[in-house]
């Protein structure tokens, strides 16, 4: 029999707003990680970003593909201080976004590739996004911090983030 493997490592549900959510001391026993975030921000049009191992150097980049209900677009961000899970439209104050991030070989010795999806419909506006992201570090990932950028936006109460091990 094959081995069952899709394990919720931890979940956080915010009872009040917070500037960030962090999962730390992530065990090294899985092949990949999957982060699932359902939530919104205290200020509109913000982007959820990920920081690994508290690294705030310019070691993150991403390429995105997005549709906003009218057009499709692609762009990128380079040498950022965190990994943008999307870069188009942004968040809502009231309507939750559904964001996933698959982090491949998170304990491996190569740079870390991340595939992100964002589903963010606002009843007349919104977008669906796909992102290929990169953290240029050979370190194993032991912590992940989620934060809305541009600076100055909290993550609203009621937001839920779950980290899965695969």
């Amino acid at each position, binding site marked *: 029999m094959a081995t*069952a493997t899709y394990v919720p490592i*931890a979940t956080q549900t*915010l009872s009040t707003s917070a500037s960030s*959510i962090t999962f730390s001391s992530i065990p090294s026993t899985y092949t990949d990680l999957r982060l699932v975030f359902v939530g919104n921000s205290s200020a509109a049009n913000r982007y959820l970003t990920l920081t690994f191992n508290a690294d705030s150097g310019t070691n993150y980049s991403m*390429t995105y593909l997005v549709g906003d209900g009218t057009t*499709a677009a692609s762009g990128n961000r380079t040498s950022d201080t965190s990994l943008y899970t999307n870069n188009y439209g942004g968040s809502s104050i009231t309507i939750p976004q559904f964001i996933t991030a*698959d982090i491949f070989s998170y304990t491996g010795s190569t*740079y870390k590739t991340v595939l992100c999806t964002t589903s963010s419909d606002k009843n007349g506006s919104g977008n669906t996004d*796909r*992102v290929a992201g990169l953290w240029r570090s050979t370190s194993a990932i032991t912590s992940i911090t989620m934060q809305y950028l541009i600076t100055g936006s909290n993550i609203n109460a009621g937001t839920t983030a779950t980290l899965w091990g695969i």
Partner: protein
Amino acid sequence: MAVIPGILASSKTGHLVTSNFFKIATVTASGSQSSVTFSSIPSTYKSLQLRILANDGGAGACSLNFNSDSGTNYAFHRLYGNGSLVSANGTASTTSLSYNSPSGSLSNIYAAAIVDIIDYASTSKYKTVKTFAGVDNNGGATSLAYLTSGLWQSTSAITSITITDQQGNNWTSSSTFTLYGIS
């Protein structure tokens, strides 16, 4: 595992092991192969998921074949962006299903792909495949985000899957291919 709440975050830290996602097999490339095959796939699951992290030292696309079928029984549509432009195209009646993740061309940068194969054991339906793949190299030319829908026009149950580097490049020895079954 420690959970650091933002402010007064509630947490559920129980390790609830879900029971419907199973690792079937993992292949780590030898460094001298341009294809990988999963064979004798059991028919006991509803769907399959391939998770791939690969680098071929070039920028080759990748393709899938099922049950060693190299006939013109595959078709696919793609939507992709390279950091500047969005493109879409499709191919009918072709000999493999290209999921077109670039394999990666720079050392330490690996392309990732998630390939979902729905109802793979059916003996009455053609097989539908969904992929999400991509790679980023900090603004470099090979950065891509890729979506593909694919079709294998066969009612045979899938018992083997071959992943091939279409340029014939060898995958580096850190490249990994893992097949999961979802019940």
